[in-house]
């Protein structure tokens, strides 16, 4: 379970996140939705301890991210925006590195590595250097790196960016399935993605959480509008 209380973060005079509160339980796929600059990525960075909040607190399965950073992060798998990777490594080396960082034993690591490579369809490029991979493969490698230790919370910033339509569909199916037994938080601009994978929407605008709803409720709010129009109305109204 993730609990965020009165979360605020500013960069100089700009309030990137302003008094945000939410609680996410196991089995939820949460879409962080909002226009550019709404504060989605900042929220993700706060949840993963990459940034320090100015005020408020975050608890991940009972561990405060500020006081028990390492314990809290053991539960979290995170793929940042643009899926940064080490270009000189091969896919195998990268996955091995991520697994070893999580303390997986040699045998467990080999088993998990084979599993995620097959799950993310990386088997054919395992020995290829990352800087020679296509964007789609790079993205899947980053996701595989986050999955190798089977985290209870998976946080993905723009998870389908750079993927072809088939790969997008596969990724969405995967997210939905993974979210059945875990927590998945995705940040996205693609509204059809929200509709197809999310069980809950946290709608943000100008650093504030303006709505904590479900895709169905969002549609019901504006019965004659589609999701994109509802999104536009909500983020421009408030």
């Amino acid at each position: 379970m993730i609990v965020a209380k009165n979360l605020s973060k500013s960069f100089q005079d700009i309030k990137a996140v302003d008094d945000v509160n939410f609680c996410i339980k196991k089995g939820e796929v949460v879409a962080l939705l909002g226009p550019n600059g709404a504060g989605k990525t900042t929220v993700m960075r706060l949840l993963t301890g990459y940034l320090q909040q100015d005020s408020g607190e975050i608890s991940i399965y009972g561990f405060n991210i500020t006081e028990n950073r390492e314990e809290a992060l053991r539960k979290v798998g995170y793929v940042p925006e643009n899926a940064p990777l080490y270009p000189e490594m091969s896919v195998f080396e990268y996955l091995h590195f991520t697994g070893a960082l999580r303390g997986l034993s040699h045998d467990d690591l080999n088993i998990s590595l084979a599993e995620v490579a097959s799950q993310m369809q990386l088997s054919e490029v395992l020995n290829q250097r990352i800087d020679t991979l296509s964007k789609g493969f790079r993205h899947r490698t980053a996701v595989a790196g986050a999955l190798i230790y089977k985290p209870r919370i998976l946080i993905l910033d723009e998870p389908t960016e750079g993927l072809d339509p088939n790969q997008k569909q596969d990724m969405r199916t995967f997210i939905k399935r993974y979210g059945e037994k875990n927590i998945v938080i995705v940040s996205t601009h693609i509204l059809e993605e929200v509709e197809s994978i999310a069980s809950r929407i946290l709608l943000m605008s100008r650093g504030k959480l303006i709505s904590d709803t479900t895709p169905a409720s969002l549609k019901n709010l504006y019965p004659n509008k589609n999701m994109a129009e509802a999104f536009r109305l909500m983020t421009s109204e408030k």
Partner: protein
Amino acid sequence: MLQNFKTIFYKDFAAFFRSGNAYIILGIYAILSFASAFYFGGYFILDNSSLISFFHFQPDILMILLPAVTMRSWADEYRLGTIEYLLTQPVSYGTAVCAKYCATFLFGMLTLTLSLPLWIISSFFIELDNINILSSYIGCILITGCFCALGCAISAFNKNTVIAYIITIFVLWGVYSLNLDFLLTSTQQFSDEVFAKVIRSLNFSKHYQDVVSGQIGLDNIIYFFSLIFPALWINIVVLEYKKK
């Protein structure tokens, strides 16, 4: 913690070789070291029982080459965006800093081993003072440790590896040239012996020369470690500060 240390250490150390930079740096080190010893150091002219013609130029060579090793340690993580990945792993900042530092330090040691053939070959032709040479190597290891710690800390400030390289050279030059003896002459009337000792003890090259000349003492060791540990601490503080 040890597992994380080993993982990051291995990743960074292997990265030197994966990128091919290692071979360039090792090659340049070998050329500069031997050229300086043979051509500028008067290897064939001077009494070289302690290989002084080789060790005399080591600080200058390491000052140019080690920043090329350390510049990538954090700056590259920022440039590639992998810093966001690395710092969201359950790894303490101290572990990550120490692992990266040790990777650069070990690489620095590896460059030094390239000079071992000179020691071995010279021993066939000259009667060498091996204790003194060993002491000189300890001096080189200590300055490698200092330069790597300072280089890594400077790299943590920067996104740009070239800027990190230039600043590191500048800072290392400043530290190496640090000589405040002029204060003693200008404050001769007021200064006491303790003050004079403190001022003299800040002289980096004096400590190196002490070690190289075989007069290695506890004060020399303490001096070098008093540069290494604060540099590592600064490195951690910079990472913590960038979270805010």
